[in-house]
């Protein structure tokens, strides 16, 4: 079964465009827990009613890396993740796997994921844009700090080669 973005409109935006859902889930997973809590509290003082299909639980995942295009995969190291799945009163199901051990973060991210698949998506868009912009700024800042320490090596022409 193939799926393309030119399909006719379906009621479930996440199924229509899984890449978009992957993007917002990624933004929520990498966001700082306190910023998500702060921004969400401005929109919704209380989280909408939901049942936990899988209550927040902390675990570790092995992060694997690959050096270069042809390098074999190797284990870079383990990191803590917290996962959670919730169902809202309207039946929308949200999942989250987030960085770190903050259970509130995982629950909020799962609720936002569920709401993004319902009519509330428009209201939540600015929150996700803010989090994505802050993440981009953090990356940029870090890249700049690293770039400032870059050392260039030049080969000086020495006389004996002539």
């Amino acid at each position: 079964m193939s799926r393309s973005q030119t399909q006719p409109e379906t009621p479930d935006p996440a199924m229509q465009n899984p890449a978009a859902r992957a993007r917002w889930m990624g933004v929520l997973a990498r966001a700082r827990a306190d910023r998500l809590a702060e921004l969400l509290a401005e929109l919704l003082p209380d989280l909408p009613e939901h049942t936990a299909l899988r209550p927040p639980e902390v675990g570790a995942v092995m992060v694997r890396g690959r050096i270069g295009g042809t390098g074999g995969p190797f284990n870079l190291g383990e990191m803590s993740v917290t996962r959670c799945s919730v169902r809202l009163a309207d039946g929308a199901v949200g999942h989250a796997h987030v960085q770190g051990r903050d259970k509130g973060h995982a629950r909020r991210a799962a609720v936002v994921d569920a709401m993004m698949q319902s009519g509330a998506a428009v209201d939540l868009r600015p929150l996700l844009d803010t989090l994505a912009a802050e993440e981009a700024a953090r990356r940029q800042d870090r890249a700049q700090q690293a770039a400032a320490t870059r050392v260039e090596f030049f080969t000086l022409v020495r006389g004996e080669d002539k």
Partner: protein
Amino acid sequence: MSADALSGGFSDAPVQSARAFRAALDALSRPGRIVTVEGAAPPAPLSVAAGVLLLTLADGTTPVHLAGALDCAVLRDWITFHCGAPLVGPAEAVFAVGDWAGLQPVTRFAVGRADYPDRSVTLIVEMPGLTPAGMRLAGPGIETTTLLSLPEVAAFQANRALFPLGFDTYLTTDNRLAGLPRSTRVEAV
């Protein structure tokens, strides 16, 4: 994916799975003792007790085989979401779930090897009922003898003859389960 497939897991996994694990150990170390478990609400046709056993014992490293009528989409999804266990054919299974008729012939399941007798299947047999009456059990964990309603005698006697190889069995109905390890001798009364 149906709505049932996502609900019915443990609500407080650390506590509930520890209690269920203790119950599973009790049942297997005292063959014939019927213990009560709680915490899971799997979709039909799986019983609560079989659901609790799967949530407690099955994970990504333990392939599960669903036999007979239990091999349905909603249960496959439920096990995938809540346990993460791969669903496989009978020969590779570490756990096999089904009613006794669906599990036949039981000889197709792994019984371990002489150097690794632990590489064998654990059968989770769904029973219409479970009462301390019927077949006589004797062996480790039983002071003299005890009675338990088993689906059959010959298969368990053949399994005992393979010792130390063989499969271990949990019998489940509703929210109750009993254990029957490979070391137990079974005879008809």
